[in-house]
């Protein structure tokens, strides 16, 4: 039973398979590890660009098909911290050769993961059948969400155990990973694929699935995906489930939370008042509680607002959105920053309207 989501089904497993998207990067990587060794790698790029796919393909290139035999474990680590024990629970997927984990899942305890867990794993060195000491690879995802302390901790580990362990760091935003970490790695930028690339990819997948994909629909799906391969493929699959044979004009589904944010945007544009702010607050809470990350809410909200305002207001929206996003990182409850952004926009839009129309 090989039924799987197309995203997973058509994921390239080897560097050589990556022909449609990221082909060039894949080639470079293949050359890099041709001699069987590689430095620490730092994959960065937007969501759905293929960072992790590349990282796993590199692993396969190094260790062979054995890396695909993974098992998932939920491990609990007990760490003695001066006077009290700290328990850290972390899910990790590991094969004989590598281990994948997302330390930022532990929230504020992530530094214990870095200080203890990773050190522990990095210390032991696998020995292959010939008695040659190899190395293992730790794949750390969402490094940009690691706390500052954890990143500091990681810095030392990377140097100290580099003989027995390689780290593959994966992050969306390199700016949130401290320079000291970046300089210890070979950074590999994985850009979001262009619309054409995504279109090609969609056609390729359709061919493999033996479907007729009208080029217009492919273009529309690609455009709706926002240069995100995962989204593009999921959208295509949804279209397939909703309606087949494809029609060039058929609806391309977007996500509810995006529609919801757009709705909030038009509500804000329709009325600027404290009571409206309270209403928007309720909506923001809903988004927030449903696990939509506040940064994404802010970005999308700013975009939604910018669609229908004058140019000078657009500049200000950009400014304030950036302002509040930065502050969101600095501290405080994210929901406060979102709301303050809305209030700020309301105030400036109102005064803009007053200035423009009197």
């Amino acid at each position, binding site marked *: 039973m090989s*039924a799987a989501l197309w995203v997973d089904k058509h994921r390239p497993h080897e560097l050589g398979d990556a022909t449609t998207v990221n082909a060039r990067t894949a080639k470079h990587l293949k050359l890099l590890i041709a001699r069987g060794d590689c430095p620490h790698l730092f994959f960065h790029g937007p969501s759905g660009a293929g960072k992790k796919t590349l990282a796993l393909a590199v692993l396969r290139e190094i260790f062979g098909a054995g890396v695909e035999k993974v098992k998932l474990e939920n491990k609990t680590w007990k760490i003695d911290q001066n006077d009290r024990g700290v328990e850290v629970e972390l899910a990790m997927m590991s094969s004989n050769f590598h281990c994948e984990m997302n330390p930022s899942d532990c929230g504020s305890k992530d530094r214990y993961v870095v200080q203890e867990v990773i050190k522990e794993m990095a210390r032991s060195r696998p020995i292959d059948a010939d008695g040659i000491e190899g190395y293992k690879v730790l794949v750390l995802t969402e490094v940009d969400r690691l706390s500052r302390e954890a990143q500091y901790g990681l810095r030392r580990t990377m140097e100290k155990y580099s003989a027995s362990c390689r780290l593959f760091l994966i992050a969306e935003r390199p700016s949130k990973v401290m320079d000291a970490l970046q300089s210890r790695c070979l950074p590999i930028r994985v850009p979001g694929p262009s619309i054409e690339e995504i279109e090609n990819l969609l056609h390729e997948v359709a061919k493999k699935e033996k479907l007729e994909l009208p080029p217009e629909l492919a273009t529309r799906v690609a455009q709706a995906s926002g240069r995100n391969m995962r989204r593009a493929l999921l959208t295509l699959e949804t279209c397939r*489930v909703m309606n087949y044979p494809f029609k060039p004009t058929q609806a391309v589904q977007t996500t509810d939370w995006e529609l919801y944010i757009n709705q909030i945007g038009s509500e804000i544009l329709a009325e600027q008042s404290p009571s409206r702010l309270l209403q928007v607050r309720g909506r923001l809470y809903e988004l927030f509680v449903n696990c939509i990350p506040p940064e994404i809410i802010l970005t999308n909200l700013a975009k939604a607002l910018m669609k229908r305002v004058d140019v000078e207001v657009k500049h200000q929206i950009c400014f304030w959105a950036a302002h509040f996003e930065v502050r969101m990182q600095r501290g*405080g409850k994210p*929901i406060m920053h979102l709301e303050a952004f809305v209030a700020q926009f309301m*105030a400036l839009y109102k005064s803009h309207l007053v200035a423009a129309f009197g």
Partner: protein
Amino acid sequence: MDDDDDDAFDFDDMIDRQDDVDVPFVDANDEVDTLGGIGKDDDDFNGFFPDDDLDRDEGSRENDRSAVNAIGADPSSMSAAKRRKTVEESTATENGSDRGERRAEKRTTIDLDAYVREMAAETSARGLGAMGRGSKTKLRSRARNEGFKANAVDVEGECVGVTLGDGRRVYAKMEPRDTPLVPEEEIYGRGGDPGVSLLSRPIEDMLDEYEDERNRTAREAALREDEDADIDMSAMGAASREPQTAGQRMAERLRGQLRGALWTQKHTPRNFTDLLSSEYVNREVVHWIKGWDKVVFGRDPPPATMKKFYSDRYAERNGLKKRGPLKSEDTHVQLDATKRPMEKILLISGPPGVGKTTLAHIAAKHCGYEVVEINASDDRSASKLKVKLADALHSCSAFVQQKPKCVIIDEIDGVHNAGGDRGAIYAVLNALKSQKGGAPLSRPIIAICNDLYCTSLRPLRDVAKVIRVKPPPNATLNGRIREICAKENVDVEPRAVALVAERVNNDIRSALHTIQLIAKTSSKVTLREVAHAGAGEKDNKPQALTVWQDCLRGRHTFPKSRLESETGSNPHMAKMREKIEVFQDNDAVFDGMFENIPKVRFQDGTMRRMTQAMNAVLDGVMFQTKSFTAGDHTLRQYAETCALTVHSCASHADALGDDFVWPKSGRAAKERNARMATLSARRSALDGKIARCSLVSDVTETLPYLNSILAPELRSVGTTFMTSDEKATLDRLVGLIVSANTLVLDPPVDEFVKFGAGVDAMKTLDRLSWREQRERDEAPPTAPQHLDLVPRRAVNNSLRSIIATAIVISADRSSPAEASAEAARLKSERKARVALGVAGGNLNRARKIRAGDDDVGTVYKYNEGHTTGVRRAVLMRHLFPELKSASV
């Protein structure tokens, strides 16, 4: 002296006092009190009210009346000491001593004395609150016949206003007395621990008296025996002045101790009528304690005469029918089946220094209990407390006739309550409950706290009778302080007293401490002295709600104080800052302010002020975070400044009042974390590749599409009636679910991708906002307001049942005889089970039928959901592979 007292009667004070006059003495208890008060001597009277022409002026009766009324109401203006004395006698009588009787006889000054005795006797028979109707009528008739007059004009000379038990206001004539009722030193010499003394006279005086008596008898005996002997009587007299005997020395020592005692201790109220807390509160406490009378003393609690009086008066005024005569079960406190008050514990709350502890002690003693106090100085861990309570409540001495005990747990909000159910509060709660097999609680327990809303008190609050004690009104407080100062011979400016009282938020304890301190250093306590001493300023930790409310309203937050209006300064911001500093929890301040800022009416059209305020809050939060992460707590002062900025933004706004809402952000974060945990738990339950995406991309990208992918359009028919296309779709779907990419459908995916219905968990949060609550309750129920988003198909129940069946079939189909495939089969079956669990109750409908087969004991017949198209027998072991080995 006279000058000072003239000062005391500046206009403000007079107004205050007039306000006070409106509170009549309405209880029968108070009749005793007030009548007693009449018996004060003129000298003393004049001491406090210097020859006011008003009082003596025969011509202006009306003025006369108001002035005397004021006297009646204000302890400052009448000699409280005298008053205390008188009522104490009634108390003493009640306690079975006849001394009160004896003393009352000494007083022959006014014609009302006889009544007092009578009343006292009556009270002693029925308890203080038990002024029966009989006595009232008696009083009324006497009032008509003798000293009482319905009009002040009818009274010759001075008079005093008295409210009778039936609510009538009458005026009694006052007559001057030559000798003071009680010797001065007896008043001043009183002291010691109020918790111990139940004597109407100090022990040292009695010791003196006893020694004198002994001396006298000894002397008389000596004289009688040896009349011829040459006894130097004068030497004898001189010797008696020296403390010779042990008793005299002891009395001297006690008195010496008192000389240096704190005023608060020295002048603490010693009986019921001295209490500063409001009459109503005092009475409530006593009524509650009396509610235990049946269990403790075996007598009925006093009937609810006051309740009846009020309801009768109401009926009379509104032309309604009066209720019938009181029955014995009509008591003030509602009793339960076991004749105990419904609420088994009394919880007295109020700010420090309003006299909660004193009230509890005096009320308990007054009702005839021995007080057992457990306060913060004792070890109050749960186990210790349990033992102490048991000791106090269940044990009594076999030899000594003891009074029943009443436990007072002081400062209960400070008890150590760690350990949840095993905490100290629970020890108290358990004591309230009747233990299995043991006797039910049969003694009153009084708990005292400052912060009623302290989290640890929550369980107690639900079962306790809560009484809130407020600080006494300014005039009462100032009067009492001045009275004490006068007793201590300290010259004090009335305005200084007022300032001190204001500074300490009407906390009489600190006020007295402050004045005593100043009096030590200077002979006269003046306003200037107090203002410059800076003493007595107290940090009161305010509650979160008040801080938010004060921050988000205009400048009328703090009215100008007495001192400021004299000096012309108004350090408003400094006060606000101090309030925030004292509150300490800046994060809570910011959370609450932020939550409520949109509701503040900032009075600006462009929302500028509101934005400013919000930004200020965020700045403050930033400083706060920084101070925390950097460990640099000096940064907190900047955060406080930010809070002040918010306050200045709101400088023209009105108070929010009822609209205040508790901050929700914490709750929202909690809810979000819970959802995150669900999601990641779901992820870690998988062993497929989907777990390799980040949680964020799961939520924002995968799940919304997955929801649609998992919900293809399928007719709700059995598989046999499906078209080949439909079959293919179903196969694919089943494949998706059963394959390595299985997403456990519990909780359903669509819960995470739907928007517009609001968050249920957040809706319950507005409990603080009563107005909203009320509106919501009154509004007709409406359907939740959904946004006009694109309607989505979700995995509905019928689809689920189809999927579930298909999974079972496919599992069955893929179970070939080959042993090699067995493992795979089991695996897929297990998954089918998971999916079936989601299929919503279909399994419940499985009917148990008897099977003829001997190998399998029981066969469960599984009927597919909505159609009879497919009916196949599914063996239990197909569904539960683990059972296979153990199958019967």
